[in-house]
């Protein structure tokens, strides 16, 4: 699902490369954590997967797209196979819960009947079936993140990227969100989650890829957040 081979990426504004000689493989249906301190290259890693940036060197294939050769016009097609969740939810404040979820279908030109059928299904999956007509500010943080996950999942992506999805949530709510991501993972969707939350990483006992100063320093199958932490 994710294949990176000797990938490097530098920014003009920095002397040190954001990612240096990174080689990572994540298979279909896997659940992996991407950890590391701020500035370690997690965000750059995710941006490369979404093709918001192009790598300077190395080969990378993500969700079936060869991102070193992909044409600009094909980038939107690539992104349709990937769902995204962020720390700050990124919901449209003037649209209701079901409109926010439907938005991902609408902009892809899905039929109105498909939108009407699929949106309630996904809202049920994330446990928001009674809140379809609420606006985001009427919801709790955990509920807003559920809406964001529903939106990311509504197109049934092959890969779900989550950038600190529990960063703004209390531990109990975070645990709920993790359960939800696990449930999505069980449908066959590969999940890659960048996080600082050691409690979550330690309790899940999933694969851990650790970045430091742009390099992969650890890649364990059933890892914990940090040795001695």
């Amino acid at each position, binding site marked *: 699902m994710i294949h990176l081979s000797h990938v490097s990426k530098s920014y003009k504004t920095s002397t040190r490369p954001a990612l240096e000689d990174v080689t990572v493989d994540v298979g279909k249906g896997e659940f992996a954590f991407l950890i590391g301190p701020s500035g370690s290259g997690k965000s750059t890693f995710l941006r490369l997967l979404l093709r918001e940036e192009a790598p300077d060197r190395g080969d990378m294939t993500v969700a079936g797209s060869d991102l070193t050769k992909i044409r600009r016009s094909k980038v939107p097609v690539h992104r349709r*196979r*990937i769902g*995204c969740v962020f720390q700050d939810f*990124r919901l*449209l404040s003037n649209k209701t819960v079901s409109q926010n979820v439907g938005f991902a279908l609408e902009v*892809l030109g899905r*039929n109105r009947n498909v939108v009407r059928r699929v949106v309630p299904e996904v809202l049920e999956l994330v446990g928001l079936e009674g809140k379809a007509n609420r606006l985001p500010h009427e919801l709790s943080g955990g509920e807003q993140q559920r809406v964001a996950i529903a939106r990311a999942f509504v197109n049934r992506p092959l890969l779900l990227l989550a950038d600190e999805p529990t960063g703004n949530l209390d531990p109990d709510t975070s645990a709920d969100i993790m359960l939800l991501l696990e449930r999505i993972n069980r449908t066959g969707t590969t999940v890659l989650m960048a996080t600082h939350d050691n409690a979550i990483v330690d309790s899940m006992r999933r694969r851990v890829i650790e970045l430091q100063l742009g390099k992969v320093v650890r890649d364990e199958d059933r890892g914990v957040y940090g040795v001695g932490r």
Partner: protein
Amino acid sequence: MRAGYVFSEVATGLRRNITMTIAMIITTAISLGLLGGGLLVARMTSHAEQLYGDRVQVDVFLTTEVSKNDPNCRNACLTLLDEMKANPDIEAVEYHSQEDAYQQYLEQYRGQPAMTEIVDKDTLPAFLRVRLKDPAKLAIVAEQYGRSPGVQQVTDQREVINRVFDVFTAVRNITLAIAVIQAIAALLLISNMVQIAAFTRRTETSIMRLVGASRWRTQLPFMIEAIVAGVVGSILAVLGLWAAKAWFIDKKLSGLFNSGVLPQITFGDFVFVTPILLGAGVLLAALSAYVTLRAYVRT
């Protein structure tokens, strides 16, 4: 892509930026109104050219000698007359004797003894009034007969007509120049409006990009917004021009129109100008929106 969904986004966008939308519509309307005004003047000029062309005539004045000795046009005068009738460029020729010329003069200056007293029957020469098939050949014909025997002088109204046309051309050029300057202002304003619209909806567009909306899909609502404003602007421009014609030009210049000095602006002229202004409005809006968005909305 569902049209209904796109248009509901467009309507929301226009409403949210209502002041900017109004400013853009007004600027577009003014610039297209001026453009339309320029086009109407241009059409008026070409109509006037026809109008005057039909009336252009050359008076070939005969020498005093011929005028006096050949009052019924039998000899030298007749040679000239026949020659002219055989000329393919000439539509019609009419002989006016010295007597005719005198009567016409008296008629023209009736009630002005100061003018009528200074001439008598022999003062004015006889002349041949020539009407041309093609007014453009006026110079050639004037040249040709100016040197013929028995001809004293050839006059035509070219100079007067040229002066009238110069005024028309100047008015048209000034109007078009202002229209161009206004169009640049409209272009910048549309670009500004699109930028503000794109900025206020940057969360929306960033989410659109994340879920894989194509560049076209992301930009379309903004472009349609600009085009809607452009079309409304051009419709207002046409209505404004029509109002200016009905309430101002037709009233103030009715004397000139009725006496046939100037051709009237017709409904047909508006049929000609309207699609041009609509097209220009759409093009202006679409072009500036497209260029702005290319620079502003990343993939």
